[in-house]
């Protein structure tokens, strides 16, 4: 970037996330979410001001490397952060309701009913000593008190059938260990969608599965979510999976969202130096004779509160300022923003 005509271009202001958005009301709005872990070795500043929207009937991807805070963001939405972790500040508004100051009892009515979550390792998240049909039925019984157990079981069976489990009547009597990874993930999906939630959080739903099974599960999820008109928050480290399933994507680095926008824009026209670097490291794009690009340096320690751009030490474009201030998010295109001073001039 050349500094030839700096004064002529009006500097754009960073996006002010605190102002009320008068566009169509998103289903989920996360503002300035901060989660810290108070460990014996010191405070881990895991999330440092996450701003994120999930629109109605949209699939929002969250990508980033290990430890960037993508799973913590998802768990914070459901308030599943266990001590020593704590949600320090921020707001999480879901369907017009603030979740962070709800009574735990009310929160329990939201989890599994209006917001469901699918975990990475399906056989770890199913109860090993309860038949899978009963586990699906249990979800129904908890959230729909007027349902009789036999009706719940019947509904569970129907749900298992609709997630593509062959011979659902027989399979619903099986225990999780008798199922393959792909089948277990189908059961998880059945369990999570049987209450027709508005928002489904999927935390690496296919990472433990083989590619051919992954393709089956992704298609299944896409179809069901479309049918139920739910929104999805899809967490993945696999950019290919995100490209295939999501409408929009947020890229996280070291506890904050660095870029956010429509999948086509972010993956084909990345604007934040980290996103650019991340895409260049993929072997998909490399020819066999050249070295793969690698981002120099390591992920920063999260034991320090954020006082600068956390990517600055590894960034090719970093300036003095990047080490002194936290960059705000700048609009870089239609519905596309990047948290980088490079885009202050609205390029």
């Amino acid at each position, binding site marked *: 970037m050349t500094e030839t005509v700096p004064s002529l271009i009006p500097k754009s202001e960073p996006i002010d996330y605190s102002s009320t958005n008068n566009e169509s009301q998103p289903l989920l709005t996360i503002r300035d979410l901060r989660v810290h872990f108070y460990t014996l070795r010191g405070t881990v500043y895991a999330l440092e001001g996450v701003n994120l929207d999930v629109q109605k009937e949209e699939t929002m991807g969250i990508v980033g*490397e*290990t430890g960037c805070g993508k799973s913590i963001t998802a768990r914070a939405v459901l308030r599943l952060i266990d001590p020593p972790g704590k949600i320090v500040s921020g707001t999480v508004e879901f369907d017009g309701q603030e979740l962070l100051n709800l009574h735990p009892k009310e929160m329990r009515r939201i989890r599994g009913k209006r917001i469901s979550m699918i975990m990475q390792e399906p056989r770890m998240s199913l109860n090993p000593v309860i038949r899978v049909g009963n586990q699906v039925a249990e979800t129904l019984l908890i959230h729909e008190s007027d349902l009789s157990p036999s009706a719940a079981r019947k509904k569970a069976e129907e749900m298992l059938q609709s997630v593509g489990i062959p011979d659902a009547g027989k399979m619903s009597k099986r225990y999780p260990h008798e199922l*393959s990874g*792909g*089948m277990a993930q189908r059961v998880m999906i059945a369990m999570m969608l049987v209450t027709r939630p508005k928002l489904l959080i999927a935390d690496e739903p296919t990472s433990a599965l*083989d*590619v*051919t*099974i*992954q*393709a*089956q599960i*992704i*298609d299944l999820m*896409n179809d069901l979510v479309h049918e139920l008109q739910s929104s999805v928050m899809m967490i993945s*480290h*696999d*950019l*290919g*999976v*995100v*490209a*295939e*399933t*999501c409408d929009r994507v947020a890229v996280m680095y070291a506890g904050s969202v660095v870029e956010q926008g429509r*999948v*086509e824009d972010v*993956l084909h026209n990345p604007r934040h130096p980290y996103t650019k*670097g*991340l*895409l260049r*490291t*993929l*072997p*998909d794009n*490399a020819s*066999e004779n050249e*070295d*793969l*690009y*690698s*981002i120099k340096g*390591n992920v920063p320690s999260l034991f320090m509160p954020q006082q600068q751009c956390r990517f600055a030490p590894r960034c090719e474009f970093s300036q003095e300022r990047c080490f002194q201030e936290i960059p705000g998010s700048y609009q870089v295109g239609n519905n596309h923003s990047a948290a980088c001073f490079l885009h202050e001039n609205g390029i």
Partner: protein
Amino acid sequence: MSSVDSNPSSLLEVKDLHVYFPIRGGVMRRQLHTVKAVSGVSLNLAQGEVLGLVGESGCGKTTLGRALVGLAPMTSGRVFFNAKELHHKNGKSSNHAMKMQLIFQDPYSSLHPRKQVRDLVGEGLLINGLARVEELDEKVLDILEKVGLGVDHLYRYPHEFSGGQRQRISLARALILKPELIILDEPTSALDVSVQAQILNMLKGLQKEYNLTYLFISHDLSVVRYMSRRIGVMYLGNLVEIGPTRSVFENPKHPYTHSLLSALPSIKKGKRKERMILKGDPPTPIDPPPGCPFADRCSNTQEKCRIEKPVLEPLKKESSQLVACFFQNENVL
């Protein structure tokens, strides 16, 4: 030694390798079932070549790698290394073991947690009597520098390192014995993409520098495509297709290879493309039925497929792409 049977130009030659594991049960510990983890794999590796091996979990790719270094029992078949036949018997491996090294998938569990890097890396030298204790530091340091670590890492313990650094230590452990063949079993699948890029670059650089031969096992097709000149596809203990990476990727002939490639998510293809999605799960390798291993999930299965097992044959005469399918020349797409 029956070195006459082997092809002198290849560093490693595997002929009809079978690895079976018995499942025993009952009072008499009778053998009830057989897990046919690898059932009849043949392949050749030339000096300085990188062969990628892909397949889904349970297809036997790891077992094949382990059998080659003697960590899994060979039920039948022959393996020639440098034109000499390998015999892994009674847990004692021959001195070829030094020239053939295995890198494991998980760098967190494959390093002894209570040994320092110096001992972890230098262990092989001491065991094989290639260095005296006094020279160890120097020799270990030489290798560590090759894998991008340095003198300040010499006396540290594995838990002090990140995943990428641990994989570098594993590699140093293998390299210090100056191997000719390195079997890499999913070396980057526990790592993040940005770290993966560093490790892959290093592996590629070392391969060129020392003219190493790699058997690169991975389920990640894009990694294998980047790393290897030739690629083999395994399904249920069988090699179903093998050939130059480019022709296998651009012109897959086995229906399984085709569906594997089409299932692969990619940032290039964009959203919701048409895919050929396989129905069902991969069958278990416990007592597999006769016939083609892929018959149950194939869209083009015919009667013959269920009776007879297709052998790996060149696509055309003199073609370097081999396919195990009766209908390889028909358009399955």
